[in-house]
């Protein structure tokens, strides 16, 4: 214990003098270091009061002052309270700083229930100390013996204390009772109290008992002293989030609401389409180092994305840059694009043959093909190789997880990867324990972020729980998303239910497996719900989202697409843009004008027209190049024209129709292959060559013959020689030797 191992009785006694000081003098005093003299001008009229109360010693003709040696502890406590912003920012990072500041390494480890060395805010100690369970554990001590056992376990030199109560704080029943009583009183209140008010507040305790209880509470992270900055008043209370949780209103079933604006679109699928169409026209270049898109290529793709309402982009993952990244990763994951080109020189993303087939599908079928690969039943097929009683992990982690050890190893691997990704930020994982360890999407029902951190070896079926939770949303009925999440975190949380059940739930947090606190279980389930919404339901059109009220509350309603993804429906409708008809006009100059926003139609048209803008106005122009790109993606003229007819109330201008057809008619596919040409001096020799080669040879002209299969060259040369036709060796092409790649030096 570095700082709070002090005489709290003395602290309480000096508080009355502290209270009489002006704010300025308190601030000056709080900055005084024990061995440093300062000019007394800052003390003003309080100087005499400070000297009388033996806070400072004045010397040097009354011009300088320094802390009085009897007041060093008090000043140290005041300075320490000022160091940590517990009242305004009661999060794990602040608590982590507080613990590092006030406890020795041995004390930190002893306070940790598992006894392992303390290493960060994600550690059990930080999370435990922020939980109600931590307090209840202490309050459950019934007698002195239990208390001393409890305390000795939390002392660094625990063996020394065993059987010896002299060094312990809870060394009497009165001390235990006093400490428990003030903890209980703090739990019944929502706010911390002023230090100076505690003697009145706990008047049933004598000041020495109160001081002892205060010391015990602080020593075992039950109570936290802090400083109210406005008036430099010392406060004491529980960790601020605990009373908030204890006194929060009970979450109710979310009510049905009517949003002011709504949006529904499987924008991830549309973005994948846009990226793929873009890649068909001009394959975007990627960096050799990490295979990420070059900024210019990414910006180009971003500018072509379908527009979504401004309020939607506030949701994490909906910003254009994130959308392009997600689309590219999904396309990669689904095998629709692959990196081709020369490493280190000209790497680019090019669509595969499967991609062309996929692009040729209707928007509904394209979406269905994605959903089918993400649906939970599909994921079960993927894990078919694993024993049934092992993991419930629905998806492909890229490693075989069949046991707790495997899962832990996997989590550690992920952690290492994350640390390598962000070397400058050592606390990355500690600060964000439930967020993704990597940014790449997980091509299964559960996104990777959702999977990490849950005890994979236990039989908690997370997908089923998510299906139950989101499946509880009524069709075509909006609820406020925050209410929905809040309710399911508190009242219908499968992790909490499991935690309180027979088989304890364990979480993989940081480096360790542990039983989560209630707060963690709530946070985790909330995060799972939000992650699943953000990474699956929203981008794949599984929910219709809305915005309600001036404050802009996000509302959601489960769609048929969502029900299909959750395996609650056999089929779904998507891409019916009829409701947007009449808002879109195709002009004779090939401009496509949107008279009102129609995102779904935008996404559809983006497949065969060049984007010019977003929102409303002239958003697209049909050009020869855009039609050629569409044709390269296996689209047909009828598909394009039918789409335009479906979307536009007015007839498509005849010149546009005609031109689009003509452009499609100009398209065709060719194959490029390598062949050998045999040049003959005259037609008669060419006939003999053909006779020798048989079906392997094809006449190109009277004197030129093609040999497509290079393997047949040697037998053909031999046969020709036998028939008196000799191959001029000098005319044979030299076979290029493969370039030897210079090996990069490894350091």
């Amino acid at each position, binding site marked *: 214990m570095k700082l709070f191992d002090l005489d709290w009785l003395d602290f309480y006694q000096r508080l009355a003098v502290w209270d009489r000081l002006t704010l300025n003098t308190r601030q000056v005093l709080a900055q005084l270091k024990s061995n440093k003299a300062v000019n007394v001008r800052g003390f003003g009229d309080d100087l005499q009061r400070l000297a009388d109360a033996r806070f400072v010693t004045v010397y040097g003709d009354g011009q300088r002052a320094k802390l009085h040696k009897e007041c060093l502890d008090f000043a140290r406590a005041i300075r320490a309270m000022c160091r940590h912003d517990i009242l305004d920012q009661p999060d794990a990072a602040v608590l982590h700083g507080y613990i590092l500041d006030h406890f020795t390494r041995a004390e930190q480890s002893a306070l940790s229930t598992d006894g392992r060395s303390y290493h960060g805010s994600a550690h059990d100690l930080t999370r435990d100390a922020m939980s109600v369970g931590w307090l209840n554990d202490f309050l459950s001590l019934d007698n002195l013996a239990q208390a001393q056992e409890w305390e000795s376990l939390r002392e660094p030199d625990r063996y020394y204390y065993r059987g010896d109560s002299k060094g312990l704080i809870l060394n009497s029943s009165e001390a235990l009772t006093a400490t428990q009583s003030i903890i209980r009183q703090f739990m019944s209140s929502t706010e911390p109290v002023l230090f100076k008010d505690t003697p009145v507040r706990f008047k049933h305790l004598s000041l020495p008992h109160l001081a002892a209880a205060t010391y015990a509470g602080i020593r075992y992270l039950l109570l936290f002293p802090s400083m109210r900055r406005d008036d430099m008043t010392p406060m004491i209370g529980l960790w601020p989030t605990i009373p908030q949780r204890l006194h929060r209103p009970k979450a109710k079933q979310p009510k049905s609401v009517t949003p002011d604006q709504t949006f529904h679109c499987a924008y991830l699928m549309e973005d994948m389409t846009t990226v793929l169409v873009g890649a068909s026209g001009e394959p975007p270049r990627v960096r050799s180092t990490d295979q990420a898109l070059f900024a210019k290529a990414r910006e180009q793709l971003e500018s072509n994305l379908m527009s979504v309402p401004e309020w939607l982009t506030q949701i994490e993952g909906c910003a254009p840059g994130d959308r392009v990244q997600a689309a590219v990763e999904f396309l990669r994951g689904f095998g629709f694009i692959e990196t081709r080109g020369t490493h280190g020189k000209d790497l680019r993303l090019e669509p595969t043959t499967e991609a062309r087939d996929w692009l040729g599908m209707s928007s509904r079928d394209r979406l269905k093909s994605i959903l089918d690969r993400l649906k939970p039943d599909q994921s079960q097929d993927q894990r078919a190789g694993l024993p049934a009683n092992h993991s419930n992990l629905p998806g492909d982690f890229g490693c075989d997880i069949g046991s707790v050890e495997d899962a832990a190893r996997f989590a550690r691997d992920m952690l290492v990867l994350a640390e390598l990704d962000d070397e400058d930020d050592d606390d990355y994982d500690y600060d964000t324990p439930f967020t993704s360890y990597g940014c790449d999407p997980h091509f299964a029902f559960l996104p990777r972020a959702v999977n990490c951190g849950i005890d994979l070896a236990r039989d908690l079926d997370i997908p089923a729980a998510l299906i139950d939770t989101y499946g509880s949303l009524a069709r075509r009925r909006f609820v406020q998303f925050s209410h929905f999440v809040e309710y399911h975190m508190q009242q219908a949380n499968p992790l909490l239910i499991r935690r309180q059940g027979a088989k304890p739930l364990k979480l993989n947090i940081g480096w360790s497996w542990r039983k989560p606190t209630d707060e963690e279980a709530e946070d985790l389930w909330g995060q799972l719900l939000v992650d699943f919404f953000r990474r699956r339901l929203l981008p794949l059109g599984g929910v219709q989202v809305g915005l309600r009220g001036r404050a802009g509350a996000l509302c959601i309603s489960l769609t048929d697409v969502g029900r299909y993804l959750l395996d609650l429906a056999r089929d779904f409708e998507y891409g019916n843009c009829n409701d947007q008809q009449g808002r879109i006009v195709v002009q004779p100059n090939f401009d496509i004008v949107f008279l009102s926003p129609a995102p779904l139609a935008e996404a559809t048209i983006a497949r065969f027209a060049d984007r010019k803008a977003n929102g409303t*106005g002239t958003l697209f122009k049909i050009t020869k190049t855009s039609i050629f790109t569409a044709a390269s993606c296996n689209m047909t003229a009828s598909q394009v024209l039918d789409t335009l007819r479906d979307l536009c109330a*007015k007839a498509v201008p005849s010149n546009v129709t005609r031109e689009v057809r003509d452009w499609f008619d100009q398209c065709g596919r060719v194959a490029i292959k390598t062949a050998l040409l045999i040049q003959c001096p005259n037609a008669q020799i060419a006939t003999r060559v053909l006779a020798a080669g048989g079906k392997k040879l094809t006449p190109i002209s009277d004197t030129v013959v093609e040999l497509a299969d290079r393997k047949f060259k040697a037998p053909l040369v031999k046969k020709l020689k036998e028939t008196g036709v000799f191959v001029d060796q000098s005319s044979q092409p030299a076979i290029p030797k493969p370039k030897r790649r210079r090996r990069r030096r490894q350091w």
Partner: protein
Amino acid sequence: MNHNSENPLIVQGDHTVLVEVDSPRYEEARDHLARFAELVKSPEHVHTYRITPLSVWNGSAAGMPAQQIQSVLNEYAKYDVPGHVLTEIHDFASRYGRLKLHRGGDVLRLEAADAPLAEEIWRSEEARKYLESRDGALSFHILPLNRGRLKQALVKIGWPIEDLAGYVDGEALDVALRDATGEGLPFSLRPYQWEAVNVFYAGGEATGGSGVITLPCGAGKTVVGLGVMARTSTSTLILVTNTSAVRQWIREILDKTNLRPDQVGEYTGQSKDIRPVTVSTYQILTYRRSRQEEFVHFGLFDSRDWGLIIYDEVHLLPAPVFQLTADIQARRRLGLTATLVREDGREDDVFALIGPKKYDVPWKVMENQGWIATAVCTEVRVRLPDELRMGYAVTDQRRKFRFASENPAKLAVLRRVLDRHRDEQTLIIGTYVDHLRAIADELHAPVLTGQTSNVQRERHYDDFRAGRLRTLVVSKVANFAIDLPDAAVAIQVSGTFGSRQEEAQRLGRLLRPKPGTNQAHFYTLVTRETLEQDFALKRQLFLTEQGYAYEILDENDLNHPRLAECGTGFKPAVRLASGT
């Protein structure tokens, strides 16, 4: 976001305004919008306008304050008008009228509305050199010689001058419009032409007397010019695009005014007559022997005491003429054009030196009243004969366009189109003279090229106008300002690559009102799957953006019985826009 689907306007953040033509409030919105926004393109369903500082100043000059512009936008917009657009319109408009130019005896005085503005222009490098001295905190002394250049410089830094310094009267000339033309047909200005004349003249006040009148092709801009001449009754210099247009102006002047031939002179390459009314070309004015030498014909401006200068097709005004115009700001200046949009972006010079837009009549009004013809544009795609395909394939890129343009298969298609319009006056227009001659020989029609003498040209034009010639084959010489009012059909067999200006000018030949259906047909014969088709697409885009209906047909479609039954035609014309 508020949404009123009945309203036609979508005002966008980049100052463009989309106008939905099918909206019930379209016409009223367009009439308001045309006063302070420039029409950029007008394809079938949605037109695009652009609000610029110049367009707002034009609106301000026509008496439309910022509040009125803002209320028009708010009233007709489908969605809320972006706040910054309204603010900027207010800002643009607030700049007009804060600098005024007055005459004080022999000198000119520029007055600023406030001290900061006066200080700004006094410290401006561009304007400072034209300010002779500072008379006071808000007033500057200007030499008359610098009047135009100062206006030009200040427009470029965003401060238009309201020029109230007035004009010299010029040499008096008795000009009056006739009641009947030379042929005895009754003649008077149409209502909108009178209105344009009166708005320009402004009762002889300093607020009028200079500016631009925009009217669509075929709406009678020449006649408006004659009306202004009659109203100002002063010696007039008329600048036009080419010699044929000079002759046409002279013919119109003699036909419709009381001026005698000896009062009207032609100042061209062939003739250098300077008379009380002189018609000249931009080319002759900008002629010089070498780049280092002076423009030898600039003296024309000082050769008489001109009271009025008319600039025909002001959007084509060449740069040197701007310099010249800057020196003659004391004379009344009338610009005539179908569009204020210049390819070189020098609209600000037109505004500063010729004057603001004074009058703009909605084309729909004129079309409804039958003052201009409607036109249908048809592109007929012709196959390149098989025996020529290899020749085309191996021709170098530079010659491919000509190769495709001179496709001999076009002749047969041409005959079929002519057959379809056998009772109508038809122009066959092309670029390559040899090809045109071959066509003319086949059709036994006269051909008119740059090598044809002016006398012979006029004879052919006269024959065509009189109906003695049904078909006339013309080269590029007929692109500009030739009035062949009875031409109802034009067949373009080749064009100058993707020249949009040429396409518009050629189509413009057809837009004089027609008896009967008042409909014109403009055909373009294009060789399929060649470079010519790519260039034709550019021209096609331009025409559709100007509001013309556009049809693409295959050569075989011309034989289609359904089409044959329709007589002349194809789908009825949709309309004609107020474009070029």
